Structure formats: structure tokens, C-alpha cells
């Protein structure tokens, strides 16, 4: 899988409520992701929500996703709503990683990437080859590979789609449908 986009880099920790400020919680509770996304990183990176474009990367030279799990859903869905390619960080909170991956946002720990890119650079990330190429500076770096299972979930677009595509799940669903269609028709 290859991802391409412009880099937005923050050299600090970015908590779940930095991504999605707690004062907009009502929008999150209503699952209004489009409006949530208008406030993405509003305090930590004020021009971000207005200027971010689909395909861009958020690069965090620090820990991403610490803080209250109540806000994880809105934080993740806001990132998805603006079309981020991925969130790449020096360190990722384990629970935030789980929420993001389940919901189809690619988040991964790439400390090797930090010296390679600055805000505004164009980045190409080849997850299969574990290579990051800075298309602006021409510098390439090898990354720690993303494990196969995580790549499978990334490719599927989240855990639900990944689960539905597993062979045993498809077989079970098919068998059930066949059993319904083979059932004796009702005598009316």
C-alpha cells in the first residue's frame, strides 16, 4: 500500500482532546463528524482544519492519542473526515491506536520518520516495502515494517470490514443464506 500527501508536523504530544477539543463534545455525542472535523486541532494547530487536504499526513514528534477515551471516537472520525492518509508518531497511546485502527484511520509509530520530514514536505509512504520517501528533499528512509495483520486491517479500512472479509465469516454467512433459500416454502 502506497500513501502520498503533504506533511503537517507537530513537535509535541498530541492528546485526543488536542485533536478534538472537549468543549465540542456535544457534536461528538451526536456523531456529527463533519462538524467535529471543523474543530480538528483547533487549539494546537489553528490553521489546520481550514487548510488540510485529503491525503495529507499528520506527523507527531511526540506521543499521540493520550487522554480520555470518551473523545477517541470524535478525534479519530474527525481525522477520517478530513481525509488524512495517516497519523504517524514517535509514540502512540495503545488504546487510541486500537480505536483508530478499528475505525479505519491509519495510525502507526514511526520514530525513524521524524528527522526526515518537516511541515509542507511531500511524503510517500510505501507500507509494503517499509520505505518513506520525502519527495521534496529526495531523502528516503527505511522504516520498521508494519505487521501483516495490521496492514490487513489498514487495507480493509477498519476492523469491521476486515472481519467481514475473513474466509470463515464469508463461509458462515453464505451457508446461512443457502439454508434459508433451501428451506421448505411456506404452505399457504
Amino acid at each position, binding site marked *: 500500500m502506497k500513501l502520498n500527501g503533504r506533511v503537517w508536523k507537530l513537535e509535541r504530544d498530541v492528546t485526543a482532546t488536542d485533536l478534538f477539543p*472537549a468543549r465540542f*463534545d*456535544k457534536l461528538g*455525542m451526536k456523531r456529527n463528524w463533519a462538524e467535529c472535523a471543523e474543530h480538528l486541532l483547533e487549539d494546537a494547530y489553528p490553521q489546520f482544519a481550514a487548510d488540510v487536504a485529503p491525503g495529507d499526513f499528520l506527523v507527531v514528534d511526540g*506521543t499521540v*492519542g*493520550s*487522554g*480520555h*477515551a*470518551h473523545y*477517541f*471516537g470524535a478525534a*479519530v472520525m474527525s481525522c477520517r473526515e478530513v481525509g488524512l492518509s495517516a497519523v504517524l508518531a514517535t*509514540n502512540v*497511546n*495503545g*488504546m*487510541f*491506536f*486500537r*480505536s483508530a*485502527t*478499528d*475505525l479505519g484511520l491509519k495510525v502507526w509509530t514511526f520514530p525513524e520518520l521524524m528527522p526526515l520530514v518537516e511541515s509542507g514536505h511531500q511524503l510517500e509512504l510505501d507500507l509494503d516495502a517499509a520505505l518513506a520517501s520525502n519527495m521534496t528533499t529526495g531523502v528516503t528512509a527505511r522504516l520498521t515494517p508494519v*505487521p501483516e*495483520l*495490521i496492514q490487513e*486491517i489498514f487495507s480493509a479500512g*477498519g*476492523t*469491521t470490514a*476486515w*472481519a*467481514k472479509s*475473513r474466509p*470463515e*465469516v464469508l463461509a*458462515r*454467512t453464505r451457508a*446461512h*443464506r443457502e439454508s434459508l433459500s433451501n428451506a421448505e416454502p411456506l404452505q399457504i
Partner: protein
Amino acid sequence: MGSTMTAKILARAAGKDVVAAGDVLLADVDVLTVPDAERFIDVFVDEGLRVWDPSRIVFCFDHFFADWMPSGAVREHPKIHRFSEDQGIPRDQIYDLDRNGLSHQVPVEEGWILPGTVSIGADTQSATMGAMNCFSMPALSSGTTAVALTGKWWIVVPECIRVNLTGALPAGVLGKDVAYRLIRDMGGFVDGRVLEFAGPGVASLPIDVRMGIANGAIQIGAQTVVFPGDQRLLDYLRPRARAPFVTVEPDEDAPYYRTIDYDLSTFECLVSGPHEIDLIRPVSEVAGTKVHAANIGSCSSGRLEDLKLAAEVLEGHVIHSDVRMAVTPISASVMRAAERTGILDVFRAAGAVVSEPGCGGCYHGNRSPIQLQDDEVCISTSVENLSGRMGGVGSQIYLGSAAVVAASAIGGAITDPAPYLEGKVGVR
């Protein structure tokens, strides 16, 4: 290099001999516990999907009360019954009225959750079940559908922090006070790791108190907590375990990110809030703050140990005339035990309303029966104190133990329960 309890449980569930922090696994799920407010049923019905194993899914009716939220109960409860019948989930795996309660409490009481196993809960507070020497996590966000389809839990094996306990809690201090101390002390570095409890102090903690501590996992910032499988746990499980099990213990050279030592005798009553869960202060620092409502219940309290201590505080007193108070036992069996031992009569005599078991005043989405007005202050044992959680966005929620809430209800202001407990603790 040895293994933590977490690594041992996950290795078994993934069919591996040994795993280490950072390994990515697919672990087999032993039990999926589901409350009555879950969207995955709609996905299954709409798309004609089938659950992986009907014998391993347990539903508990907890969020939608027939008395306070009839519309939700009427919509969700029959839906769960229809879904279960269609999927072949046995009817006795639906904990309906008179058997109901919180979705990470009832499966423990009913012997579904056993040492060495992996259980996933659809509710955010499902790490509570980690008190059973097992690996138990909430399926935050959209994880429940995948578990129900596959019976698998994908996981990056987490690092663990060892919490070494000595001594015993002072009288009047509950699991909630321990959880708040851990939020205050450890919130900065837990960062999604797992807390594993150890040390001679664990033996002094009743199972109810362990569950109260484990309930705070997500607020502490931990993926889950794991308590050891000691004699007290074995005694608790003996009459209820549904299957044979083997307890797990860490190897002596198990790798821990950090080890923290605590003398339980140094713990005290703490209060969280308002608005921020990690604004934690000793009850003495907020004493005197006027309250209009008091709430005992929810999954972080509402167990028999909590209700018993609150009754000891309230016995012989009446609730302040400016305060309305609700008490919600965590489960039908706890409610029956509290009824049998006269605890509920103490609440009623003091002027509190006792509701049917469930989430009670904690229920999110502005549908709390407490219905705080914008200028009101509540002291509650519940999970969250976010603005607007129990009513108006201008209201303030302070959180504390059942003893703190009971004392505050008497005083009409946040109150240290210690004077009310002199000579009373353990009497009931």
C-alpha cells in the same frame, strides 16, 4: 525473560507458547459481554451476518430502565430477544429484568468470566472484569462487530506496569478512592499500558473493591488491569465458575515497564471534578461545597461493599432537605442481597429513592434521572463528570465514593464521611 500475566493469557488465547510486548496477535475470545445499548445488532440484521459462537455472547440489560427510560427499553430489549432467537443465543444468556445489571458485573457474578481467559465487553468500563485474573478489555468504537463475527481480538501485546500493594485500606476507603489515587499518580505515564496488581496487600481487598479499582482502568489510561488469582478469588469463584480454569501468575523475571509500590494504609477518600476526571483532591479540600443532588450507583460503585458502607454512614440520619438522592444497585442479585440485609431500608428511611438495578444516574446523553439543572451541583459515585453528563451543561458533578456521597447527602455539602463512620464500620 519471563512473562507477565497479560502475556501469558494472550499467548494461550493466540495458541502460542510465548509472546512479548509489541507482538501482534489474534487472540481467541472466550466471552463477549454486551449491554442493551449496542449498534452491532443492526449491522448483523441489515446484512444477514451470523455470530461466531452463540454460546459465548452474554447480554445484560442495564442502560435502559423500564421505569425511567421506557422508550429505550421498549425499543432495545425486544430487539435483543429477537436477535438472540434468530442467532441461536440461548435465552438464559440474556440477563433480563430480575436477573439484570451491568454488563461487566453480571457476567462475573454468573461465573462467565474466569482466570486465564480473554473477555471483551462492548461497554467502555469492561476492564472491570480484570479483577477475575483474566484479560478483559472494552471494544471501544467499532470493535464489537468484529468480535461478534470472528471471536478474535486483534492486539499488540501491551507493556505492563506492576502495582505492588502492601498493608490494608483504612476503614471507610473504597475501590473508587484507590482508582482516583492511581489516576492522580499514574495518569502521566500509563499511556495505554496494562496495570498488573501484586503484593501481600491484594489479599486484604474484597472482590467488590478489586472490581471498583479495575473499573477505573480506562480513566487511569490503562488498556486494562489484571488482578492475581489468589485464594480470595478462588473462594469467590468456587460456587459460580461455569467451567474449569487455571489461574495465571507472572514469572519472577517478568518484564515490567515500571513497578510502583503502595502501602494501602496511606489511601484516603478522594474527590474528582468538577468537569475533569483527573482533577483529584482529598475530600477535605472540597468539603463544604453545597450539593443539590446525590447519586450512589453505576458500574464504578453500586456493589454490596459500596452500599453497605453508605448505609453505615446514613444509619440514624436523614438526607438534607435541599438534597435529592438516588441509589441504584449494580445488579439484581446485589439489590436482593441489599434488600435482605436491610441496607435498602436504611436508604429509604433516610429519604433516598432506590431504583431498579442498572447504570442509574450515570447514564449519558442527558437522560439521567437526576436531571441536574444548570445551577446545580451533584456528588455522585458514577463514572464520568463531563459537563452535561447528568443534565444541564452548567451543572457541576463531583465524584467520590459511596461513603462520601452518603455523608454529603446528610450534610447538604461535600462532607468527609469519617465522623459518621466512627464505631460503625463493619457493624452491618
